[in-house]
């Protein structure tokens, strides 16, 4: 058995069939609107065009004399030739149709085609011919690229808007400046450590950037109070996840940002707020933001206490591993600080730091 031979249980072409095909292929080809080609498979890996239809010539801008009787090396531009040859060989080896997208420059114009090639075998199981089609998808690919470009532009607008919202919260609450930025960075790192797909990591980052947006509705004298809050004042503070959720509810984020904001103070044992949810009802995104929020807050100065430091923060989440905080999230967070040299942006820096990175 050679490269072009294989055991074939299926019916194959006879010599009479092949003689008929030589006459009939052009007739059938002209009925079908896609660009079609019929290739003879010769020894030593030579593929020769035996017949093509008018759409093929129109698509390539070549004349029949430039194609029929020529080998693929003489017709197909070099950048595509290697792929084409490999796919032809794959079709022969597998006996199956092989499809791929191909971009080639013919007559100075780039055309993109969806190519499909199927092998034809003789009774001995030797591949004698390939039949292929090229469906011109240049216009649809161009439209797809334009849509992707528009989508990217919209995404940039979204990112800019989220950052502006995050900055506005920082400006209204100077003592918390940079908090959301740092929570977002830590949340992103935890999500990456957990092996989340990039889209989910991205969502957690933006959830972190906005998780405290509801604080802007709380009077500054309460937020910045150095003494203990009254019960009523603390109740007001506990409303900030709901207020934040209400703020972003109408925005159609591609991630569950509203849910992350609403539930970032919920805890596994139901002791959190505002809804007292338990394990299973809280999304992993919200729990990641929650752990990041605790760690960042303990590492930062507050009007009512000095910064407690990363050791105390890690001790806090570790001691409540599996009771308040999800174990895998705690473990990922601890690994980041103890094994992977992760560090928060300087919490003493009151200036908002623009988020530079992959987003």
């Amino acid at each position, binding site marked *: 058995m050679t490269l072009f031979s294989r055991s074939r249980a*299926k019916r194959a*072409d006879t010599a009479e*069939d092949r003689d*008929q*095909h030589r006459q*009939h292929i052009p*007739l*059938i080809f002209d009925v079908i609107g896609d660009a079609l080609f019929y290739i003879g498979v010769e020894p030593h890996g030579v593929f020769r065009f035996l017949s093509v239809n008018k759409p093929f010539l129109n698509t390539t801008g070549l004349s029949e004399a430039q194609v029929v009787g020529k080998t693929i090396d003489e017709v197909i531009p070099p950048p595509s030739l290697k792929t084409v040859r490999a796919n032809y060989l794959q079709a022969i080896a597998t006996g199956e149709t092989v499809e791929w997208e191909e971009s080639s420059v013919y007559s100075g114009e780039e055309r993109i085609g969806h190519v499909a090639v199927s092998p034809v075998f003789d009774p001995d199981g030797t591949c004698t011919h390939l*039949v292929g*089609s090229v469906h011109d998808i240049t216009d649809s690919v161009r439209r797809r690229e334009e849509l992707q470009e528009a989508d990217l532009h919209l995404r940039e607008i979204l990112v800019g808007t989220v950052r502006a919202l995050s900055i506005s919260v920082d400006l209204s609450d100077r003592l918390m400046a940079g908090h959301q930025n740092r929570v977002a960075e830590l949340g992103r790192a935890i999500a990456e450590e957990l092996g989340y797909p990039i889209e989910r990591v991205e969502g957690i980052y933006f959830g972190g950037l906005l998780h405290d947006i509801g604080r802007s509705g709380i009077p500054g004298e309460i937020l910045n109070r150095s003494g203990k809050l009254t019960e009523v004042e603390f109740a007001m503070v506990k409303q900030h996840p709901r207020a934040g959720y209400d703020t972003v509810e109408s925005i159609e984020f591609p991630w569950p940002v509203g849910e992350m904001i609403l539930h970032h103070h919920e805890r596994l044992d139901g002791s959190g707020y505002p809804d007292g949810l338990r394990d299973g009802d809280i999304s992993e995104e919200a729990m990641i933001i929650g752990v990041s929020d605790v760690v960042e807050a303990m590492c930062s100065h507050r009007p009512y206490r000095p910064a407690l430091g990363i050791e105390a923060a890690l001790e806090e989440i570790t001691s409540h591993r599996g009771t308040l905080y999800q174990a895998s999230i705690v473990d990922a967070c601890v690994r980041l600080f103890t094994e992977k040299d992760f560090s928060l942006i300087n919490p003493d820096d009151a200036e908002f730091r623009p988020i530079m990175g992959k987003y």
Partner: protein
Amino acid sequence: MAKSVKTQPPEWIQRAPVRVSAAREMLATPTEVFDALCDHESWPEWFSAIHKVERLGEQRDGMGSRRRVHVNRRISLDEEFNVWEPGKAWGFTVYEASIGAFRSLNELVEIQAISDERTRVTYTMGFDPSPVFDALLKAGGKRFLKKNLEQALVALSQLPAVNFK
């Protein structure tokens, strides 16, 4: 030179090696759809792949009647009707062709009333293709045929005789 094609019974289409099918709901009664199908000469008006249709023999309609379909000036198929149920189903088997693209070809149109005014039409082609035609069908030909069938059904639904309301 005409090529003999092996005729097949109507039920063969269910086990044909290659099947292409399209369906469409039409604002018409089953009888109106069936009558449009039986008007062979008008087929080129709604089936763009067909150039001309002519009746063969003396029997104009019904089971066993025959017609020749010219796809273009050099490709023609001779068909014999083996399904003829007014308002329900219509189909044929090809017994001769000008090209050796297939060993057998049956076509079947099933007509199903959905309401007093709406009808679902399902058009199925069943082939036993030659190896080269089989390869062509796999390499895009099947997609082309399906698109062609879908377009034909759209055009059929827009015929004045069908789209009467």
